[in-house]
């Protein structure tokens, strides 16, 4: 999928570089919990409800899991860079990898009517976040921009 919601419609209210928290982690499933704990606390700082916080944390976890499994084909030693920005009205999280360029046509959620294991990650990310934007990096790798705003529906 491409753009969900237009990020320019919700300009980050504060985006000085110094407001950003950046994690550089290896593509090892072990680190997912560290990313979740951090994102979850960031959501608390943003004043999110428990539901907003849980959803955002889930989305970032799913996005990192997908990078590990698809962009890096399961390799555990490749870099992932997660950058979190606290906005006055929510959080913005960008996730960069240096793996295989994604084919946007492949990144889509499947028909949920067919009950089968797998194929839920992209659906979960899209259901929860207000902005979901996949970009191929001009060189190797990809950048995913996620944002969640407070009190959106």
């Amino acid at each position: 999928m491409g753009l969900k919601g237009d990020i320019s419609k919700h300009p980050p209210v504060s985006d000085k570089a110094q407001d950003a928290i950046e994690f550089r982690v290896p593509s090892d499933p072990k680190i997912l919990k560290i990313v979740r704990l951090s994102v979850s606390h960031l959501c608390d700082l943003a004043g999110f409800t428990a539901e907003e916080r849980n959803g955002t944390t889930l989305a970032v976890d799913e996005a990192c899991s997908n990078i590990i499994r698809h962009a890096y084909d399961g390799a555990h030693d490749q870099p992932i860079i997660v950058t979190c920005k606290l906005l006055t009205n929510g959080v913005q999280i960008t996730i960069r990898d240096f793996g295989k360029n994604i084919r946007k046509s492949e990144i889509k959620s499947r028909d949920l009517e067919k009950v089968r294991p797998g194929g839920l990650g992209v659906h979960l990310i899209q259901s929860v976040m207000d902005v979901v934007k996949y970009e191929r990096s001009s060189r190797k790798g990809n950048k995913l921009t996620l944002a969640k705003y407070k009190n959106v529906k």
Partner: protein
Amino acid sequence: MLEVTTRNLKNAVVVVIKGDVDLYSSPKVRKIIIGLTKKKTENVLVDLTQVAYMDSSGVATLVEGLQQVGKYKGKLKLFGLESAVREVFELSRLDKVFEIYENEEKALGTLA
């Protein structure tokens, strides 16, 4: 860090999961549940009381278990879902596919 233990009751096996179920830990859950389905365990009850977090890999593992028990007409039921875990099932529209109970007593009460 995730712990998975099983407890044998007269007419069911309870799988007690403790910790976060994610891409790192779900293989451990899968091993136990698939192990039970290979032995054609009639009733598998999954205790999620101590699971504060589950992602799609955890959900996928439980869907796989449900499909396996279905093959031999067994049952797989869940109980004790924390709100964050319940939300994942709802978002995946699987809250109607699984039999979900409040606690062990209620899940047991539905067994023949």
